Structure formats: C-alpha cells, structure tokens
C-alpha cells in the first residue's frame, strides 16, 4: 500500500464548498504547505474548522473562506491574527464562534458517529445568541438539567502536519502536544497528511516509536512529504515558529501584494528557499512561554 501523494494530487481531491478541518493549534504544527497549495488553487467557498492560526489568516487573505467554525485565531506571540480580523471587520466571512472545548466536543461527536454530545459549555453566553442553530437537550434522568446539544462537526477532509510517516500512513506526532489532530482525523471522511519525514516502517522505531502514533493508518487517505511544511508555524521538536516571518506576514494585512509576490505561487521547495532555506528553519529555536 502506497499512500504517497504530491501537493497537487491532494488539491485535485478537494472541491469548492467543502468543510475542511485543519490540525495544529495557533502558530503550532499547521499543514502550511497544503494551505498555501489551496491558496494557489481555484478552490473557494470553503468552511474551515480550526484552532486557528496563520492557516485561517492566509486562506482569509486569499478569499477562500465562506464560513469559519472556531474558538480563536491567534499567532501565539502575536495574539491577534491580522488577516482574520480584517475579514471579520469587513464582514467577508460567516462565523460559528464556539468555545474551544465545544469544538473538541463537536469533533468528538463526529468521530463517534453521534448527532451531538451534551455540555453545559455555552450556557449563559452569547455563543448561543449568535448561533441560533445550537439546540438544547434535557437530561432524561432525575436532574432534568437543560444542556447544550453540541452538534457533530462532520468534516469532508482533515489536513494535518506530522513529524513522521511511512508510505502506508502510519504517522507519528513527536512534539509533546498532539493537540486535537486525532479527533480531526476521526471526524473526517478523508485525511491528508503532510509529513516532515517519510521513512520506512522499520524506521518508525518499533514499540518506542508507536507511542507517538496518535491515530491509526486506516484514517489516512494520503501522505505528502513536506519537509519544513509547517513553516512559519512551529513543528516541535524539529523547529520553532519563525517570529520574523510571522511579523512580516501579519504586517502584510495592510497590503498583501509584496508578501504575496515574495512567498506565494511557488512550489514548496521554492517557498522554503524564499524564506531562507531549510538550514535556517532548522535553526529556529523552539519557543518558550
């Protein structure tokens, strides 16, 4: 079984109007080379679900987003995401704004093939005011508590970036926090992976390596080899986030043309060269909080 694909092959498997879940968290371990490939494609009217960072911002800047389902969008050290803010302030995108735990619950419901999961989260807040489609459920037990029925967030596709994969889609996330990537994979009809390294199954490290295998290969449709594919976000333990680049990207919200001509519409290899090359990225230290 060989699931190795090119960036182009993944894009060809996507279509406009799809609901796409994106792994990672803020400015950490985002599948940015796949996101850039979407920006360069004809795809449009996408619904995104993300613990958002520059993935959301870049797609907003390229007018690819119809609707965003989110709890936050942030570049971590730069707390507010300028491109996303611009899209919101100009009323360019629809939003379903949720508590980050409700996002988790919606993905989990989808992962478990359930219509919803109950929660108190959202009660007493304007999350309910602005999402009238959220309904309630009464506990069938003696407490009869009224709870939010968080609907399943079913995904057409999940896009995730990982540290290692073999050609069968046995993946490893080696950074200390796997975030919610597993739930994205389980909530999706198809999951495409971009991977820092593509190695043989033997090179995955046996039992010790298997601890880092956060979900099973049957969930993986395709794997793209994308060294430094998370740049400018971090990919622990390989490299940190590129603050200088994130700053330049953030400032480009005022005028995107210069940023675009420097960094967009390139192959992944050309992009890596344009941001200083693989050696430079390798030397970006991991962030300290």
């Amino acid at each position, binding site marked *: 079984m060989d699931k190795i694909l090119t960036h182009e092959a993944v894009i060809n498997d996507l279509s406009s109007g799809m609901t796409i879940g994106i792994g990672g968290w803020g400015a950490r371990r985002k599948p940015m080379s796949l996101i850039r490939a979407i920006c360069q494609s004809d795809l449009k009217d996408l619904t995104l679900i993300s613990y958002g960072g520059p993935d959301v911002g870049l797609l907003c800047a390229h007018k690819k987003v119809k609707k965003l389902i989110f709890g936050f969008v942030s570049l971590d050290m730069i707390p507010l995401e300028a491109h996303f803010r611009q899209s919101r302030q*100009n009323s360019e995108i629809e939003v379903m704004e949720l508590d*980050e735990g409700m996002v988790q619950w919606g993905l989990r419901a989808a992962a478990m093939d359930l219509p919803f999961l109950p929660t*108190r989260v959202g009660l007493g807040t304007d999350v309910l005011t602005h999402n009238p489609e959220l309904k309630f459920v009464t506990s069938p037990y003696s407490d009869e508590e009224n709870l939010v029925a968080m609907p399943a967030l079913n995904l057409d596709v999940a896009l995730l970036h990982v540290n290692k994969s073999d050609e069968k889609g046995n993946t490893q996330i080696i950074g*200390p926090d796997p975030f919610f990537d597993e739930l994205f994979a389980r909530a999706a009809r198809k999951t495409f992976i971009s991977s820092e390294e593509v190695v043989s199954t033997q090179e995955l490290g046996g039992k010790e390596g298997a601890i880092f295998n956060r979900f099973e290969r049957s969930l993986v449709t395709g794997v793209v080899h994308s060294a430094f594919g998370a740049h400018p976000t971090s990919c622990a333990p390989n490299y940190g986030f590129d603050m200088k680049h994130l700053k330049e990207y953030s400032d480009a919200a005022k005028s995107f043309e210069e940023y675009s001509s420097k960094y967009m519409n390139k192959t992944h290899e050309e992009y890596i060269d344009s941001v200083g090359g693989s050696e430079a990225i390798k030397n970006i230290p991991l962030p*300290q909080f």
Partner: protein
Amino acid sequence: MSDSISLAEICISAASKAWKDDGEILATGIGLIPRIAAGLAKLTQNPDLMMTDGETYLISKPAPMGKRDASNDQVEGYMSYSRVFDNLWGGKRHAMVTPTQIDCFGQTNISAIGEYNSPKVQLLGVRGFPGNFINHKNSIFIPNHSVKTFVNGEVDMVSGMGYKNKQLSNGKFEIKVVVTNLGVFDFNGTDNSMQLLSLHPGASVDDVKLNTGFELSISSETVTPMPSEEELILIREVLDPQGIRNSIFGE
C-alpha cells in the same frame, strides 16, 4: 526595601491571595501579572497548586518570567491541551485572566467589540471562556481600570458567563477576586454586585467610581496591604528576576 515597592508588585501580591484556599488544583495565570501571581501563590499561600511550564508539562516550581534554561525545570506531569480541557471540565482549576470588557454581572468579553456581524474590533474569539467560567473559579486582572473595560450595560459579546446566570453552572461559577491598577474587588456586594475591598496607595474612591461604568458597592476604603519582605524577594529574585513586570505599568 518598602519605599520602592512598585504598583506591579502590589498587584502581584494582592492577586496571589486568590488561590489561597483552593487546595490541590491547577492554577493558570494568563498574562504577565497573573502568571507571576500564580507562581507567588504556589511559593507562599498554597504549595499544593499545580502549574504548567506555560506549555505542555506540569513543573514543581513556577517557571520564572523571560528566557530561562528549561532543562532545569523539574517536570512532574503532563498537561497537553486535551488534558487541560479534561481538567477544567472537571472543575479542578482556577484561572486568572484579563478580559477586554467586564460588566456589572461579572460577564466578560474577549471576542469582539461593536456589532457582532461587523465588529469594530475583532479580538481573539471566545477561546475557552465559556467553558472556564461555567466549570471553575476564575479571577481577573485589569491593568487599566476604565469605563471602556468596566462597561455600562452588558459586554458586547458575552464570552464568560456572569452572576445573572449562576444557576446554570451547577454551583461552580465564581469570580473570586478582581485586581486592577486602582484596587481589589470581588462580586460579593448586594445581589452579587462588584464591591471595592481595598484601594491601592494613591487611588481614591472617586477614581474607582469615575472609571467604572456601573454602580459598585463600597464596603471598605482600606489600603491594599503591601507585599511582605518574603513576597518581594520571591517576586524580584525568583519569579521575575529580569523585572519584566515593570513593563505593565511603565514603571
């Protein structure tokens, strides 16, 4: 030492008392002053508190502010985001946060300012506020006490619930303390109104009233206690040796 005590240090000392009676829970201070305050609480008021390195690991001693050699951290456990969610849904956490707006009900906003569908200012998004406030105790630090922060009427987008919906939280909602650049407050006034507990040196009741967009109870006009010698040494030499705290009020 006492003649040079800064406002930041007074706020850190006052804020650290928030976790005093919490027992063995996760203390999360988000932002400069709350984080140093949580660390101070662990080193003085409540050594049983659990605390992260700001990322994925629980560590035995609070991480100092600024660059540090993280290889010296004594890691004692694991706290991925997924586990933080599990922890907070179970209520064993007390966070201190800095919302952009807060109202007379203790409702908070970090989502957006202005009309929701076309916000004047898009902020972070509600993030974990709906879940945090309904599931566990929270405290608040506000560095710029003003009518823009303590708003008249309700906050623009209720991200964290308030006292008017307390009954929805299964008894878990509480704002323990609010520390600002002017004083220390809680919501234990009449009908859970915000009340002044103490004023920082130099601040007056009029300053507080003028800079709060709603009625508040004045139960006390005492002066906020100064940090002890021990607290000052811990703040200055252990928790924030580089003096990053001075940036918060431009001291």
